């Protein structure tokens, strides 16, 4: 597990990424956006469904694959109501994911694209290494199903993920977002080396 010093550094990474994400989201929605990081830590993957509101919690998610020096995935989860709020703001009319049509899907993809890209850039800047990203994929479903799919796809033999708890204030409305960074085994080692200053 990580030392307190390493945890602080990870929280700092979470803060930087969230700062980038807030700026990008604010420009996109033309609304003031404020993101605060309440915690950032390594968590055993089996706890993750509980941390995001239970395995059956209905969530909207964005999954971004990272390639290059650091490989892995960034997963962002929002309660469906909060994601609907963001999409409604973006398209300028009330929107429900019950009718997840092309408009809603592309709007949510856009939100996800901007946010996950911001975290990926922050990570690359912080580690001083270029990180390549693909177009993110989205899914609206049970939190447990989404988390386990990601965990098994990225790192079947790893037992922990970096978990960042965030609070988004968009236009005075508060929503809780969860950002999970799951590096592959080799990449986690590189990050830890970097954290300890000998990377």
């Amino acid at each position, binding site marked *: 597990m990580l030392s307190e010093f390493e945890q602080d550094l990870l929280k700092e990474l979470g803060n930087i990424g969230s700062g980038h994400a807030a700026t990008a989201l604010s420009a996109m929605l033309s609304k003031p956006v404020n993101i605060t990081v309440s915690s950032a830590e390594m968590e055993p*993957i*089996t706890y993750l*469904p509980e941390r995001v509101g*239970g*395995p*059956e919690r*209905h969530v909207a998610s964005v*999954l971004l*694959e990272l390639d290059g020096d650091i490989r892995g995935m960034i997963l962002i989860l929002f309660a469906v109501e909060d994601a609907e709020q963001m999409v409604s703001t973006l398209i300028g009319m009330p929107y429900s994911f019950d009718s997840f049509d092309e408009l809603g899907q592309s709007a949510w993809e856009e939100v996800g694209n901007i946010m996950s890209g911001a975290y990926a850039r922050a990570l690359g800047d912080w580690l001083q290494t270029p990180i390549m990203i*693909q*177009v993110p*994929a*989205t*899914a*609206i*479903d*049970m*939190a*447990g*199903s*989404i*988390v*386990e*799919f*990601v965990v*098994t*796809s*990225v790192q*079947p*033999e790893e037992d922990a993920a970096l978990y960042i708890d965030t609070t988004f204030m968009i236009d005075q409305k508060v929503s809780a977002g969860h950002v999970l960074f799951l590096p592959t085994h080799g990449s986690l080692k590189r990050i830890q080396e970097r954290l300890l200053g000998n990377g």
Partner: protein
Amino acid sequence: MADVLKIGIAEWKQTTAPNRLRTAGLGSCVGVILYDTRLQLAAMAHVMLPDSTIARKNQTIEVGKYADTAIDALVHSLKREGATRLQAKMAGGAQMFQFKYENEAMRIGERNAEAIRQALKVHRIPLVAEDCGGHNGRTIEFDVATSVLSIRTVSVGTKEL
């Protein structure tokens, strides 16, 4: 009083009627149930990966995590309780995200389901019903008394196998 036993990722549990077995939020994982109707006995595993040989050396293997070791464990445990005529049902193995460029690791759901089918064949256990694949997460609950498997998805609602 009937209890509902909850099975987490990579876990497995066994029980008798009138209890039920439940696992929530299956994505690429597969929930598999082996049961003996005569004894009103059943066991469920929440399988995460197809094959235990990919586990790193010197690592303690969680038997419920892999298709091969999970089926072996369920069969062994149920037979110890006197089960002779085992049957199976399973659900899960979804592809939760659709990427432009898919790699092998992303078809893990499909591979989990196939690995379980193979393991059941080895033990000559008939697979009575299954609901695998697709793009939806599933929560499943097995009623040991009736052998009915309820499957709930966010988009489709509940169905029974």
